């Protein structure tokens, strides 16, 4: 069966004043299945909005195709496409009350008054705004407007809902609540969501699959765990979560395992297809998988433990409430980040900048990237 949405080789350039054309979409292909929550994640200008607008019919493609259930929709105008959008600025009609805003698509489709009223009430109930129908949209708070926009987009039960940074205008608390509600709503309604954000945390919590975009191209596509723990390349590693990237030369390989040496001389054993003798591999590990020991005795710590052991000097330490964030300068490697629960007590009573420390990263927490750290 054809997937709900399929994008094939979508390419779009924009002419700029006097300069070289900007590539907003660069041969992008993607499929979205039924009842799936797919997030487009990427930095500003990477083409997220352009892709969404191409699907909804407000932007043309230079080449490529967009299909819904196997049928191309490129020749259909925006109003004839079976998708609805929640706009970033909500785009509520200021001259209509909440109920008329929500019922707009039904009104346009000629759904009778009574039926319309029933479905509008139902949609408002669903977004937690039951009884708000008669209010003017101008009197609503940002969060309420956001819910009205959502209700308006789902009232006609589209198969596919496009959301362009719908939560970016909300404050932190409200945003977190709406994230949960959106996810529940998506699941409950069985509508597929294509959700745009440049907030990686939002993407990680909500999505079934994440599409990391940069320069109009897909950098990685996969479930949140893959994106976070097994990024394909340095861009994804840097963009999603905090990361330490270290270059290591692969010395030899025997069976599944290879021996690597990082700048500064430390060696470690790693397994995996990407460990090929003779190449420089890029190792990724997250700050929270680094353990830190302090004191001069630690400087030459157990070299036998499986993983990467390094010695360095603490340059910065800050307390975030639940954790300490440390920055450690390792000679030959550069500054590395570590997040630890407790600071190991040294003779002086705490870790102070300038003190020598020993780091250890277990092998299991080290991920080898494809390609160099761009």
């Amino acid at each position, binding site marked *: 069966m054809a997937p709900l949405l399929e994008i094939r080789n979508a390419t779009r350039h924009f002419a700029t004043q006097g300069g070289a054309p900007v590539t907003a979409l660069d041969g992008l292909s993607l499929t979205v299945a039924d009842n799936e929550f797919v997030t487009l994640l990427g930095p500003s200008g990477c083409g997220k909005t352009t892709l969404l607008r191409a699907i909804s*019919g*407000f932007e043309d493609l230079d080449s490529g195709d967009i299909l819904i259930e196997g049928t191309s929709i490129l020749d259909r105008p925006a*109003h*004839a496409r079976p998708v*609805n959008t929640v706009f970033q600025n909500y785009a509520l009609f200021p001259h209509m009350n909440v109920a008329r805003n929500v019922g707009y698509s039904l009104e*346009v489709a000629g759904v009778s008054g009574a039926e319309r009223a029933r479905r509008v009430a139902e949609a408002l109930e669903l977004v937690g705004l039951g009884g708000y129908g008669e209010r003017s949209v101008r009197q609503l708070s940002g969060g309420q407007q956001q819910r009205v926009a959502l209700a308006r987009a789902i009232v*006609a039960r589209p198969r596919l809902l496009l959301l362009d940074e719908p939560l970016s205008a909300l404050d932190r608390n409200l945003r977190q609540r709406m994230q949960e509600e959106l996810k529940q709503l998506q699941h409950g309604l069985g509508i597929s969501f294509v959700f745009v954000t440049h907030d990686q945390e939002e993407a990680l919590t909500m999505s079934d699959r994440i599409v990391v975009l940069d320069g109009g191209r897909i950098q990685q596509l996969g479930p949140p765990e893959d994106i976070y723990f097994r990024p394909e390349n340095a861009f994804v590693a840097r963009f999603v979560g905090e990361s330490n990237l270290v270059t290591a030369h692969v010395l030899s390989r025997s069976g599944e395992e290879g021996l690597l040496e990082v700048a500064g001389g430390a060696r470690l054993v790693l397994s995996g297809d990407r460990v090929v003798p003779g190449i420089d591999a890029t190792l990724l590990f997250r700050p929270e998988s680094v353990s830190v020991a302090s004191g001069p005795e630690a400087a030459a710590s157990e070299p036998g433990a499986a993983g990467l052991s390094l010695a360095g000097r603490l340059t910065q330490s800050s307390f975030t409430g639940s954790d300490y964030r440390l920055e450690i300068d390792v000679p030959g490697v550069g500054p590395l980040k570590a997040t630890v629960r407790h600071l190991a007590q040294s003779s002086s009573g705490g870790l102070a900048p300038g003190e020598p420390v020993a780091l250890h990263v277990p092998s299991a927490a080290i991920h080898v990237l494809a390609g160099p750290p761009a």
Partner: protein
Amino acid sequence: MFRKRIGLLAVYGIAFFAFIYAPIFLVVVYSFNANPVNMMIWSGFTLDWYRTIFGFSAATTELSLYVESTDQLLRAVRNSLIVALTTTLVSTVLGTSVALAVARFRFRLKAFYRALMFLPMIMPDIVLGIALLIFFVSFGMSLGLVSIIIGHCTFLTSYVFIVVSARLAGMDMSLEEASADLGANGWVTFRKVTLPLILPGVIGGALLAFIISMDDLVITYFISGVDSTTLPVFIYGMLRRGIKPEINAIATVMLLFSFLVASLGLYFRARGR
């Protein structure tokens, strides 16, 4: 020191408004003055001048004998209304469409086109009047209501364009996209979203066009024919034979009419907020 300045400011303000409104106030007062010979001298209250212009006989008419024929006056009023209403309709439709097109579409020479739409506003009336006269004559068109209407439309379309454009500039374009996204085609979107939102601008532009058309003397003077005299042209003709009391009554009625139209405009603007 500060209080003194405020005092000066108040005096200045009063003087300023007196300067603007005193002449108008005098016209209204004189329109009720019974003295038929010298309206500067008050000789009692009368409504005779109003009776005269509306065609009722009055005691003082013998003395004034000014409006030779009320028919002429009424015909001028009728001509003015026909011209103003037709012009308003045509220039509102044209001006609004052009404003929508300029706001929506990207095309070459757009800035130039916009400038062209502004030009008739700063063009001296007398130049426009002469140009239109030469145009009509060289095309062999007889001067009459039609030529006046065409002439008025040429510059009033610009006024409507500018008022509606201002309103469109403040309108969020994503609303039209939202409407299309929810399944409305172009025409339905225009009817249900665009038009209601720009309506205050459209009505404002229409009222402006109506008032200017009713009021225009210079351009109309050039392009009106013998029996297509409008009210301003008719009054101008009367004045050349001396200022007589009926003129005050006509002016007062016109003033009242303008106030009504303007309040209507303000009402719609307030509702559009």
